[in-house]
Structures are given as structure tokens and as C-alpha cells.
């Protein structure tokens, strides 16, 4: 094999691996969420299909695939069909820039466990996370239903209020690492993860990503208590499934990003790097599920209040403090 073919093969293999692992993980995250929520509520959760209910995701998939794919007659056809993909694809695309393990040596060459080591990896993530909200907005708009539209508007408003604090909370990371490249950010945390220097930025980022993946307490675009199912009220079958899976891919991806930015990525003692990365990412997933079992939904204006009047100024102050600290530590 010529080096070029080998390169392409390795890349394709990595992409296939990511697709397989992330999609399977997303399906099992749904299952884990149902089980965990059940335990929190003193129930048992789905335990019928297969041993311990482990085949439940498969049963769900079959159900979703065989359900009728209904489109409301007044809906905007193309946007309606496009929106679920626009919600799910950016989520999984973001995974391309996440380094999920230490570089390995394959066929005598160094292979980074990362699909694309972009030098603007962080910006790439920010851009994609903004695109993902188009799925919500267009899905709600195209459905031509009041609940879906309300959900979509809420989604947009939510985007504006948390995106800012999310971006600002990542600035200190970039200042510390001196690079937007995700592998550099991980490398800069080889000895001490950034959460030690930046607990505040980590907290802000955590709140922001909870809002980003529309989890309770920030699930106001969905808000099944008020808006039926928010932006995906009119969706059924696998299109609804795509929204659903997209949400869980988002949890995994954002957990992975939080790991990369603040918890030292795949760095960790004893265990292999890949295991460290997976463990940290799943810990975030667990935390989100746990939050869902605990907290009530915020009101619409409360999220705005939190984002604009609290998190954003705090993140700005944090940036100033970081700059000040960096200057004192290494005066130029």
C-alpha cells in the first residue's frame, strides 16, 4: 500500500470507529438514562428486553423505524425533512476535532486518535454548536404548529444567552494553552488539568453545555409540560429519533469537549488513555442524567437572567483575572 492509501484507510477507519462507538453509545445512553432516572425515582426502569433490558435500544430502534413518518400537511416539506439531520449531523461532526486517546503507532507511523487536528479546533466546535440550533429553529418553523414554533423561538433565545458565556468560558483555556488546537490544549494539561486553575470557567462551561444540549434544567425548547414536545412536536418515527439521538450524541460530544478543555483530555495515570477519556466523558453524561433527576425546569426568563446577567459578566471577569495572573506569573 502506498502511504497515501494507507493514510486514507486509517482516516476512514477512525471515522467508522467514531460513528460506530458514538452512535452505539448514544443509544445506550438513552437506556442508561431511563434506568438511572428509574432508580432515582425508586423504580426499576426498562428491564424486559434481553438480560437487564440491554436490548432495549434495539427494540426502540425497531419501533422508531417501523412507525409512520408523518408530515403535517401544512408543513414546509423540505425544511421539515432537513431539520432532524441538521440537529444530529453537527453534533457528530464536532467529534472530528476531539482527541480521544494518546497517539498510537500503526504500521510504523504515528497515528493521532483524532480525525482532524484543526488548528482552529475550538472555533470549529463553536461554529458547529451554533449550526446545531438551526435544526431546532428550522424544525420548529417548518412544522407550522404553534407549539413547535414556540419551542424553536425559545431554542434561539436560549442559544443567544448561553453561547456567549460558553465561548467566554473557553477563552481562559486558550490563554493557558496558547493555542486553539485541541491536541495542544490537551498537551498543555499533561501535568495539571485546567480545572485546577480555572474552576470558575469550568463551572460556567458546565452550565452552558447543559443549556447547549437542552437538558433539564435548561430544556425550555422542549418543555413537555408546557409545549407538548417543543420544537419536535410534529415529528414522528425515525425523524423524531434523529432529534432524539442527536441530543444524546450532543451529550457525549460536549462531555468529551469538557474533558478535553478542563479535565486533561485522555491524560491520566495507570489506565490506558482511551479508557480515561471514555470514563471522564461518561462521568459528564452521568452528571447530566443525575441533574435531570434532580432539578426542575428553569423558566424562560430565568435562563436569560442566568446567562446574561450572571454567567457572561462572570466569564468576562474570569478572563481579566486570568490575564492578570498570567502576566504576573511570566512577565514579558
Amino acid at each position, binding site marked *: 500500500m502506498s502511504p497515501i492509501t494507507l493514510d486514507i484507510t486509517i482516516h476512514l477507519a477512525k471515522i467508522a470507529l467514531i460513528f460506530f462507538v458514538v452512535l452505539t453509545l448514544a443509544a445506550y445512553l438513552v437506556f442508561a438514562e431511563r434506568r438511572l432516572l428509574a*432508580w*432515582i*425515582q*425508586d*423504580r*426499576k426502569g426498562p428491564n424486559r428486553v434481553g438480560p437487564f433490558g440491554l436490548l432495549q435500544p434495539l427494540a426502540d430502534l425497531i419501533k422508531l423505524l417501523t412507525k409512520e413518518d408523518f408530515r403535517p400537511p401544512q408543513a414546509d416539506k423540505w425544511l421539515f425533512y432537513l431539520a432532524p439531520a441538521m440537529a444530529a449531523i453537527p453534533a457528530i461532526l464536532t467529534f472530528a476535532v476531539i482527541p480521544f486517546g494518546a497517539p498510537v503507532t500503526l504500521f510504523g507511523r504515528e497515528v493521532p486518535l483524532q480525525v482532524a487536528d484543526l488548528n482552529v479546533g475550538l472555533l470549529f466546535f463553536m461554529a458547529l454548536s451554533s449550526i446545531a440550533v438551526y435544526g431546532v429553529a428550522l424544525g420548529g418553523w417548518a412544522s407550522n404548529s404553534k407549539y413547535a414554533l414556540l419551542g424553536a423561538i425559545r431554542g434561539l433565545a436560549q442559544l443567544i444567552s448561553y453561547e456567549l458565556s460558553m465561548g467566554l468560558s473557553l477563552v481562559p483555556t486558550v490563554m493557558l494553552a496558547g493555542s486553539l488546537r485541541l491536541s495542544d490544549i490537551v498537551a498543555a494539561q499533561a501535568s495539571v488539568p485546567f480545572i485546577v486553575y480555572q474552576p470558575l470557567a469550568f463551572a460556567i462551561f458546565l452550565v452552558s453545555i447543559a443549556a447547549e444540549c437542552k437538558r433539564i434544567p435548561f430544556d425550555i425548547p422542549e418543555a413537555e409540560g408546557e409545549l407538548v414536545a417543543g420544537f419536535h412536536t410534529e415529528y414522528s418515527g425515525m425523524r423524531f429519533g434523529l432529534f432524539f439521538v442527536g441530543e444524546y450524541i450532543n451529550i457525549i460530544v460536549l462531555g468529551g469537549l469538557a474533558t478535553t478543555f478542563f479535565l486533561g483530555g485522555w491524560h491520566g495515570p495507570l489506565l490506558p488513555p482511551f479508557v480515561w477519556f471514555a470514563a471522564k466523558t461518561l462521568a459528564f453524561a452521568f452528571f447530566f442524567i*443525575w441533574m435531570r433527576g*434532580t*432539578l426542575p425546569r428553569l423558566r424562560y426568563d430565568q435562563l436569560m437572567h442566568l446567562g446574561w446577567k450572571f454567567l457572561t459578566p462572570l466569564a468576562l471577569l474570569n478572563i481579566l483575572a486570568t490575564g492578570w495572573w498570567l502576566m504576573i506569573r511570566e512577565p514579558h
Partner: protein
Amino acid sequence: MPILNDLKALATGLFVTWKHIFRRPVTVEYPDVKRTPYPRYRARIVLTRDPDGGERCVACYLCSAACPVDCISMEAAEGEGGRRYARWFRINFSRCIFCGLCAEACPTLAIQMTPDYEICEREVMELVYEKEELLIDGCGKDPEYDFYRHAGIGVVNPRGGNPDEEPPVDVRGLMP
């Protein structure tokens, strides 16, 4: 500082749910595990008989009138010796909400609730129970009770012949 209060409340809440993860679930896994309901549990309705084996129901329509969802219907008829009965008696269990008001209204204790809750059907018409399906052979919850032995209308015993009755007053006589 309100933020500290908020964080404390958050931590308290998270701790509570954390503890519940390790509690034993209260779920009863129904088709595998069947709870035994209490004797007074209100489920499938039956029509009972009196100790002598006669139908208790006198087709008075009180249960039908008491039923909040109007799911009892019947047609009254009169048998030998003036004893009333229901020619047909029908309960639509697909509408019944198992409130038990019919059983409370019944003067003869004929209609009674039983704890048998497994009456689901795939065909909704099969939930309409006719009299043959409702009528059981026993006396149900009050084995002693016999309406006609207290009613004083002279079907089982002559008028005034029941143990807790006085003979009828002669309204045309002068004596008290």
C-alpha cells in the same frame, strides 16, 4: 449571599437523588409478581344471591341511578309471588370507573365489588358483561343478609311475619 444558598440547595437536591439511586425499587413487576389485593379492593362487579339461593337483585335501578358514568342498565320483571328480578342486567366494564357507588346504593346488597382486577380484553365488546356473567352462586360479603326477610312486603314471609317486624296496623280500625 443568594448564590451560596442556591448552591447549597443544589447540593442538597443532588444528594437526595443520589441516595435514592441505591434504594430498593418499589416496583411490583406485575405479570411475574401479582399482589394480593385487600378484600375490599374494588374491581370486577358481581351480582350475588341470598342465603336461600334466590337472586338478590330486585331491579330497583338504584345502582344504575347512582352510577356516575351510567354503565349499568337493566330491565325489571316480576316473577311468581310478586318477587321482582332483572330480566336482563348489563354492566359495561369499559366505562366503569370502579368507584363502588353502585354497591353502596344497593338496598339488597346484590351488587358487590370483588378484588379480581384482571379483566382486560382485546375486544372492547367483551367487556360488556351480561347477567349470566355477573351472577355468582354465593352470597358474597354478607352471607346472612336476605332482603325479603326485612322488607315487609310479604314475598318470602307473609306481611309482618319477619322476625324484626310487627304485624301491620289496621288503618281502618279505631284501636291504636
